[in-house]
């Protein structure tokens, strides 16, 4: 069985935010207005943090992209009272929008605060309505949503492979953010496959994971030279 994971090379990230836009377009993430942004209600499955390092004049600005960590022991899955969020066999932490009761217990137990709640009824402009991705369901008000590693792309890749009567190749499945990244800072693949690049990169000395001490075992690895001062 495969275990999909991501490696994010922080030394390569240029902070262009292309991944953020690609994610929003691909996954029908609702566009928030400035008021929602100010009141912390905006939804963005992928977000790029800006971190200042050092003191003037020796300052460095660094960028930190954050998708869902797709933990191996996801704390959010444990507490869901209806099984709306679950870990699928290929390592993706998924959310069933039509089952979610909106109790927000999972959002509170996510140590990375990377789950998002729909505080409002989603609204789309007419232009946007025509551009919605038909492969991804629109979310209703009152449910929790999160990064799915563009799970629908995996489905599609599997269907294509079946149609062409061949095995699914690792390169067939790439999330939108990874596909878009111009500097190659985002790398995606199968963490169980010793030949894959993510496997190799996740083992090198530059690799670390967020809040490793909690034992959540994120499947998103970060790479950086020296220590990360986030």
């Amino acid at each position, binding site marked *: 069985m495969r275990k999909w994971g991501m490696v994010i090379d922080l030394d390569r990230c240029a902070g262009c935010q292309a991944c953020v836009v690609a994610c929003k377009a691909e996954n029908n993430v609702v566009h928030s207005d400035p008021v*929602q942004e100010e*009141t*912390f*209600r905006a939804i963005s499955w992928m977000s790029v*943090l800006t971190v200042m390092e050092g003191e003037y004049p020796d300052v460095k600005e660094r960028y930190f992209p954050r998708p869902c960590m797709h933990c191996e022991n996801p*704390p959010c899955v*444990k*507490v*869901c*009272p*209806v*099984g709306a969020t679950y870990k699928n066999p290929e390592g993706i932490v998924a959310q069933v929008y039509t*089952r*979610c*009761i*909106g*109790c*927000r*217990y999972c*959002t*509170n*137990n996510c*140590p*990375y*605060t990377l789950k*998002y*709640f*729909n*505080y*409002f*009824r989603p609204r789309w402009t007419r232009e946007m309505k025509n551009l919605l991705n038909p492969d991804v369901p629109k979310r*209703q*008000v*009152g*449910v*929790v949503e999160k990064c799915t590693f563009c799970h629908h792309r995996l489905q599609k890749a599997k269907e294509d492979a079946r149609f062409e009567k061949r095995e699914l190749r690792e390169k067939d499945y790439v999330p939108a953010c990874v596909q878009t990244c111009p500097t190659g800072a985002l790398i995606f693949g199968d963490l169980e496959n010793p030949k894959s690049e993510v496997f190799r990169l996740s083992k090198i000395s530059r690799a670390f994971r*967020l*809040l490793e001490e*909690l034992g959540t075992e994120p499947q998103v690895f970060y790479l950086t030279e020296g220590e990360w001062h*986030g």
Partner: protein
Amino acid sequence: MDNARDDYSKLEEDLIKPITQTGRDFYITVAILLAVISVGVFAWIIQLRDGLGVTGLNRPIYWGFYITNFVFFIGISHAGTLISAILRLANAEWRRAITRSAEVITVLVLFWGVGNIINDLGRPERLLDTIFHGKFQSPLLWDVVSISAYLICSSVYLYLPLIPDIALLRDKFKGTKRGKFYRILAIGWKGTAKQWKILQRMISLMAILIIPIAVSVHTVVSYVFAMTIQPMWHSTIFGPYFVTGAIFSGIAALLIAMVVIRKSCHLQAYLKPVHFNNLGLLLLVMSILWFYFTFTENLTSFYGAEPSHLAVFYAKLTGPYAPYFWSMVFLCFILPMAILSNRKTRTIPGIFIVSCGVIVGMWLERYTIVLPTLINPRLPIERGVYTPSWVELAITAACFAAFILLYILFVKMFPIVSIWEIKEGKELGVEETTARVKSYLPDTVLEKKSGGSGANENDSSSRRENDHE
């Protein structure tokens, strides 16, 4: 004998009076409460229409007023049943006048505890999914099970001791519409010896059953927080800490109810200073116990000095939640200590002030448990601010108003002081207690000679005492 009969008819008259006579104050109170409730209903409709965006919640502060209310109301519910069950089982004679007013609190307040958590859901219409598709590994499902059991058992426990009184009312209001209502509820109670025996046995059984359920309820409510891995929620003492807080706030709520009932229903002869004194002392004990837990909980986090815990700790003690935290310490510990530990100030007005303070303080306690953790998630990235919106305030006010309204309606329909239990106390209680107290003491020479079954029992027990020596 005639004397006793006069006494009883006076007793019945006193206790049924609140049901038959309705003053102007009643209508004014009900009107005010209905006004508050209708504002709350309006706010609720808006929330249903627009989603939870109308509240002050955001990311990462996903829980706020509603969850605080939920924990608070469930806490208050421990007033009744637990106190009344313990006092019943302990054969505390002074319980007779207060058990019912306590039990009513439990049942009525539970609705608003449950109501608040349903109100907090993003999709309340999917509530039943917790039953049809429930995953028992989630502490929220433990809540569902525990609270439903508690609601059912405490309703039964309220209803059982009501039956003889309902039957009395049925006979009083024979032929009227009210009488019909009481006839249905009385389920054919005739007061035969067999019926009494079954009733007493059932009450004792429920009293025993309800104590572990009540303890489980607030333990499980605390587990909702304790089972997460968030700083200062993930605490092993949360179970007993919450149960203590629950009983503490419950006693305060009961005392407030008693003061109001005593005044508005003119029951000064039934709810006497001794009841307030005893419950006041219990409140003082719980206050000290509560403080001990609060102290332990915070000192442990401070001394361990893990950065993520310290962030929450300082948010409470010196940060944005410091005003709430220190008001809580004042209202829940300093004020009760100051007023209740002195016999001169442990009067009914004094106890009333303390109880109101404790209620506010315990609400703040729940608030300072829920919020400081949420504004300080483990990763030092998202930092939120939370200000409740008018919708949350209106719905919270409406919950309190609705609880008070239901309570008033209960007082208007049923005797709030149990008539038969007071009678029983007059008939049997005094003798029983005398016999019990005598059995504690070494026998006098006279009694030894007189013999009889009771004396024999005393003999054996006193002999056992001697053996120990």
